[in-house]
C-alpha cells in the first residue's frame, strides 16, 4: 500500500523463506541472526554497506518480489539464537 501511494520501499530481511511468503516489492536478504540485519554492533563499515546496498535496490530491482542475497554470511553458527527465537514465537 505504500508503493501504491507512490513511495518506493526496500525491506532488509534475515528470514529468506518468510520474505518469500510475504512478498515485499524488493528485499535484501542478509543471512545474519534476527536482531543483526545490518551486522554486528559497532561494525560501521558493514552496517553502512548493507544500508547502501538495500537503498540502491530501489533503483536497480525491476521485478516485484525480487530478493537479493547479501554475499557475506555471519561468521559463526547462530543456531542457538534461532532456537531462542522459536521458543518465543
Amino acid at each position, binding site marked *: *500500500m*505504500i508503493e501504491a501511494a507512490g513511495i518506493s520501499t526496500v525491506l532488509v530481511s534475515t528470514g529468506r523463506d518468510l520474505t518469500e511468503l510475504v512478498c515485499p516489492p524488493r528485499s535484501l536478504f542478509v543471512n545474519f*541472526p534476527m536482531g543483526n540485519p545490518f551486522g554486528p554492533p559497532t561494525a560501521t563499515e558493514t552496517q553502512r554497506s548493507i544500508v547502501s546496498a538495500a*537503498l540502491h535496490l*530501489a*533503483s536497480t530491482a525491476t521485478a516485484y518480489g525480487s530478493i537479493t542475497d547479501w554475499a557475506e554470511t555471519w561468521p559463526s553458527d547462530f543456531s542457538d539464537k*534461532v532456537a531462542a527465537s*522459536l521458543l518465543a*514465537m
Partner: protein
Amino acid sequence: MEPVHYVELLNQRYRQQGFPPYEWTVNEPATLTPLDKPLSECRVSMLTSGGVSHCSMPDWDAHARNDFRLDTVDPASSSTDFAVNDSYYDTDDAQQDVNTVFPIDRLRELAETGVIGSVSPRLWSGFMGRIYKRSHVNDVAGPAFAEELLADEVDLVLLVPA
C-alpha cells in the same frame, strides 16, 4: 550457515504444541513503484518493527500482541538514546548498538556524503510484535502510515522487521 528455514521450524513447533496449522500470510505481487529520480536526490525514511523506542517514549512490550502504537523518531536523535525490547530475537547487540536494527547513524552519514538526498523529518518504530489483525493493517494502519510518509514527501522507505 545455510539460511534458516523459519517456516518449517515454526510449523514443526506449532504441531508439537498441538496447534492447528498456522495460516501464513501469502501475498501476491502488487504495485511496484520504481524511483523516478536518482538516489542522491531522494528523501529516505525508515521503519523498524523490532521494538526500538527512543528514551523519551515508554519501552515496547516485548511480548506485544496487536499493538498498533507507532512512534515517530527524530532523525537527529543520538543512537545511544534508544531501548530495544522484543522477545522474538536476542536484543543484546541492538541494545549495545541500535544501528544493528535501526541504522540511524548510517542513514545520516549517507545523507552527509550525498549517497541519498536527505533523511526524512520523521523516522518510525511500530507494527511491533505479534500482529494478528491483518485486515486492520491492510485497511487502517497501513494506509494511515502511507499518508504520514506522503506528508513528509518521502521517496523511499527502508523497512526493517529485525
